């Protein structure tokens, strides 16, 4: 059974259909990359999975359980699915440590003292040992994004969603964030990424999906999708983005 699966997911914003019947299977420990032009619906797919957007039609299953039932309390589901955003979205009035501690404290009722050692270890693992007491505006973009990843991981999620997390970064900072993703993959995390980093997708993904106008036009292993794309739209997109 797939860890996460989407069946015919439809999302509309008014007249605008952003997801037009998305089918997607993500196996445990897999890294799946969603690629495609801006506006193709990559981010919306992730937001739907995290129940930040209610869907119009279709189903989303986590461990075989439908999590898209209308009226379902979204909070227990969101705890199991971590999400990292393009614009980091750290809480600016809290230090890095407080940012990470907030949700485990409130949701799991753990104390600061209880949490500190394990969170400090996460910070250390991602090269942030000396940045724990800094405020977001005292950190570089790459550091902020790594704190955001630590914040999501501290909830011990089973699946992580990454929404173009390197798009707002200076080119020289992209590498440090991608390294974190490689580390996570090694640890066996199930991950879905919306990304423009073609090189990374080709090298690290288990599966790549090409989205256009809210549909998955083509999917497959990175070798086949990048090496021998079948769909003319995929070819055109890859030709443009790889230049």
């Amino acid at each position: 059974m797939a860890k996460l699966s989407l069946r015919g997911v439809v999302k509309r914003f008014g007249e605008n259909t952003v997801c037009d019947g998305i089918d997607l299977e993500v196996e445990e420990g897999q890294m799946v990359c969603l690629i495609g032009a801006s506006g193709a619906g990559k981010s919306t797919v992730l937001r739907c999975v995290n129940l930040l957007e209610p869907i119009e039609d279709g189903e989303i299953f986590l461990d075989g359980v439908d999590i898209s039932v209308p009226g379902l309390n979204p909070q227990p589901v969101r705890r199991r699915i971590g999400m990292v955003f393009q614009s980091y979205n750290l809480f600016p009035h809290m230090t890095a440590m407080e940012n990470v501690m907030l949700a485990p404290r409130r949701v799991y009722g753990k104390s600061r003292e209880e949490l500190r050692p394990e969170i400090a270890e996460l910070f250390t693992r991602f090269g942030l040992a000396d940045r724990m007491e800094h405020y977001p505006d005292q950190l570089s973009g790459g550091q902020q994004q790594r704190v955001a990843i630590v914040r999501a991981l501290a909830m011990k999620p089973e699946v992580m969603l990454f929404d173009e997390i390197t798009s707002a970064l200076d080119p020289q900072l992209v590498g440090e964030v991608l390294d974190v993703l490689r580390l996570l993959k090694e640890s066996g995390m199930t991950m879905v990424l919306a990304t423009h980093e073609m090189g990374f997708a080709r090298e690290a993904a288990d599966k790549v999906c090409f989205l256009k106008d809210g549909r998955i036009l083509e999917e497959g292993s990175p070798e086949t999708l990048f090496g021998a794309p079948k769909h003319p739209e995929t070819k055109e997109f890859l030709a443009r983005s790889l230049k």
Partner: protein
Amino acid sequence: MKKDDAAGKTRRQIYEEKLRRRSLLIAGTSTVFAFLAVVVLVPLAPGWEKVKASFFNREVFVETFPKLLDAFLIDVMIFVWCAPAITALGLLIALARDVQSPALFPLRIFGAFYTDIFRGVPVVLTVYLIGFGIPGLGLPRPFNSPYIWGSLALILTYSAYVAEIFRSGIEAVHKSQRSAAQSLGLTDGDTMRFVILPQAIRQVIPSQMNMFIALQKDVALLSFIGPVEIFRQAGVFKSLMANFTPYVGAALIFLAVTVPATRYADYLLAKQNKERS
């Protein structure tokens, strides 16, 4: 870099210094002229001697000023218990207007009504209606005190304004902050309490300070329903001495409090704008 004079300044620096000196000179000259115009022209007015005697009388000022200061303590006292109540009630109303749950919809409607009504009526009218109306029900002492009902009128009116300012602050916090908090599995209540509100409150502190400066001035309206605070006290002196100087003294006392507070609020606002840019 090309140095043009002995001090080693660039052409640009010399030019800018010249500009600065010139604008300083112009500003200085026009200020002196404006000041002279007031000092010279006003005393030339036909009624000046009379105005001077009845508004700027030194003996009356010296005699009444300490007592006005004492009376001002009542204003400060009323302010001190009204301000926290206004903050708390204003915050509650702002939160009520933001509730999402349909079961609490009446609360939302109430919040909207509340702010519309109390912002739509002149403060002095609310003070009259509540300050005379409720004790008129024949309540026993001390519940017929104008201090209680006058304060309540101020609290009701000002919390409506303060609620609107809090609400604007809540709306100014970017939606992505809410998404981030929700994606972590926080409840709506925790999201508001730990993520949205702290940012919103910080954002609106300068505006709220201006509201509280206005409140300190409006405390004087309570004089209409009884309490002998500074405005009323000045009125008593005016009648006793047939002289308006106590009003000038009262104005000076208000200014001594409100001007520094206003300057401070402006400073906070300027600092915030600078941080944001």
